[in-house]
């Protein structure tokens, strides 16, 4: 690792490093997800800041709303198609599409093909999109080749534990990227989450359709988080984090909840 100066200089030095190694700039469209847009816009801001820090030219196609996953997962494919077509329209011209969510990313990358299996034209567009879609941390490591991303901000070390969300892990097949970036973030000591790859029990509408089962899963996840001893729990999905965070807040647990982008952006949690 290079010897970084004071944290004040960090962003500038990092930008210069990037500028030397990676001209010309990569352009990427942000698909921010409706949950971040409407409920947690600060996460989207962090995503943009981190991407820009890595020299990416970020744009935000304003026609986007929701990818349609909540509808698709509930079997309402006709309604889901409306939103999916809207998403295809918004993202058609993009070089890369960056999604700060494994779940919505999986919808774009994996499930649009199923959704449009019976429509050759739309299927072709879905397949074209598939190859350009990256989850946020995956984009950083696999497209930009970023290995180390020192947090832009306070460097006081804190313990963080990472919950690998199911769709990121088993649909998008991203396992290492978030942990690698967190490990190298400088301000973070990543601690192991027991039974990390167990679902938190969110599952979209599952959480309200079968709350008695969801709550059991959530209780176990919370116990694992406490067992890890971490001050902060993080993930690449605001769905899971809203679920986990909702219970942490309800129980007044001394654990903060942040999206990985917020940590990489140097957020204090």
């Amino acid at each position, binding site marked *: 690792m290079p010897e970084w100066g004071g944290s004040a200089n960090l962003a500038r030095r990092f930008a210069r490093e990037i500028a030397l190694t990676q001209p010309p700039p990569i352009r990427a469209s942000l698909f921010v997800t409706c949950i971040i847009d409407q409920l947690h816009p600060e996460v989207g801001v962090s995503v*943009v800041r981190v991407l820009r820090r890595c020299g990416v030219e970020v744009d935000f196609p304003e026609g986007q709303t929701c990818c349609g996953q909540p509808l698709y997962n509930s079997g309402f494919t006709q309604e889901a198609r409306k939103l999916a077509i809207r998403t295809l329209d918004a993202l058609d011209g993009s070089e890369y599409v960056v999604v700060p969510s494994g779940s919505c990313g999986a919808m774009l990358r994996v499930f649009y093909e199923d959704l449009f299996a019976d429509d050759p034209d739309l299927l072709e567009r879905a397949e074209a999109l598939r190859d350009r879609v990256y989850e946020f941390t995956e984009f950083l490591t696999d497209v930009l080749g970023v290995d180390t991303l020192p947090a832009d901000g306070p460097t006081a070390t804190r313990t963080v534990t990472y919950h690998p969300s199911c769709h990121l892990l088993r649909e998008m097949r991203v396992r290492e990227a978030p942990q690698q970036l967190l490990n190298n973030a400088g301000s973070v000591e990543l601690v192991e989450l027991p039974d990390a790859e167990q679902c938190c029990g969110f599952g979209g509408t599952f959480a309200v359709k079968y709350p*008695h089962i969801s709550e059991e899963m959530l209780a176990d996840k919370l116990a694992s988080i406490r067992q890890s001893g971490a001050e902060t729990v993080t993930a690449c999905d605001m769905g899971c984090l809203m679920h986990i965070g909702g219970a942490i807040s309800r129980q007044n647990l001394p654990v903060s909840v942040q999206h990985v982008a917020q940590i990489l952006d140097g957020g204090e949690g």
Partner: protein
Amino acid sequence: MAEVATREFVPASQAAVRDEQLRQALRRAGSGFDGTRREAIAEVTEDVWEDWRQQARSIKEHTIAHLDYYLAMLERNVRAAGGQAHFARDAAQANAIVSEIARQQGVRTVTKSKSMVSEELGLNHVLEEQGIDVFETDLGEYIIQLAEETPSHLVAPALHKTRGQVAQLFAEQLGVPYSEDIEEMARIARVALRQKFLEADMGISGANFLVAETGSLVIITNEGNGRLCTSAPRIHVGLAGMEKVIPSLQDLAVFLRLLPRSATGQRITSYMSMVTGPRRADDEDGPEEFHLVIVDNGRSRLLQDPALRESLYCIRCGACLNVCPIYQRVGGHAYGWVYPGPIGSIVTPGLVGVAQAKDLPNASTLCGACRDACPVQINIPRMLLHLRRQQAESDDTNQRTVSDTDKALAQGFATVMSSPWLLRLGRLVGRALTAPLARSGKIRQTRLPLVSRWTRARDLPVPAGRSFRDRWRDELSKGGN
């Protein structure tokens, strides 16, 4: 057919999550099986494992795609080996075939090795009504037969019972001193069953595989009871779902590697028995008659639907149950029928009807652990989605079970999300309505239907004052943050 209680999933699962003993039993068994499975895979290495899975899947794909051909070959070769093959359209027909064989042969006592199909058919009950004594000889099956219960796991039928519960059951039902010692309990069962093996006129077994080219029935057990059931009595009846056929002995090899490792983490099973026809002239023992009953009972419906066909690739190893976070919380009985867990949530609606089992495809977070654990790569989440789609959109009103409220909510959501303008309005209205209920940006209690099912255990964030798109337009797009 076995009683169908799939409509009771919600109350049954609510009771299950409150059952502390069940919880303990599930925890121990689930993590135990899955742990040994992972070790067994690590031992052969992931790459080799993936090769095996791919091979097995290809064999299943091929066989199921040409099922008529291989079933005809199987039937021919069962006959050539001196056995009889019977095809049963449904449970009633299958039960009638076995009853009739028993009646003609004057059968009084039946010993059974483990068979999920016989559970599906409710065969024990039918034979008992005919005055025949039926004894399960797999230890787990024996336990639940004594308890008058049904299996709660594909491989470990009495998994839901703790050691103490079994000891209690033995003491009450068999009149033996209470003992929680595993060796002692196994000895008690062995003594009780040994006599039955000798008395039985008919042995009934399931089949893990049917080999078309030889007409053989293959069973895999750990207790040796299967071999006693299929060789000691004078009649052997094998029961199998029609999807159990594979083309050749060569194809069997990869499944013998995959099945024990996936089920219990064993490299190889304790007993692998291959039965080809009845006793031959120069055989020292074996049954005088061999019957194979090949059961459809709704499987051809799964076969017809290209989206559900791969559910017929299942080799009933139970690995998907052991990794399923839902099964691990609610246990097998909550699913309401013979086949529980992820694969059961596909097979059960397929066999008993989607409308009968509408909760099963929905009671999943689609976490995908089942697909990764499946030794034949069955894409269970995708089939769950397909069944949900049938429930929401099928032209067949028997299958379309979604409520008008859910439909209206879905349409409302789609409408709001179809316009950034409506989305903005929706957020502001949502914020205005919820902000007064909130403390430091979180809604804690609400009586709103649906939302209250979230807030009973979790706080809910209030919609943001300024959305991301507002911030993008006002600052971020101009280079600010």
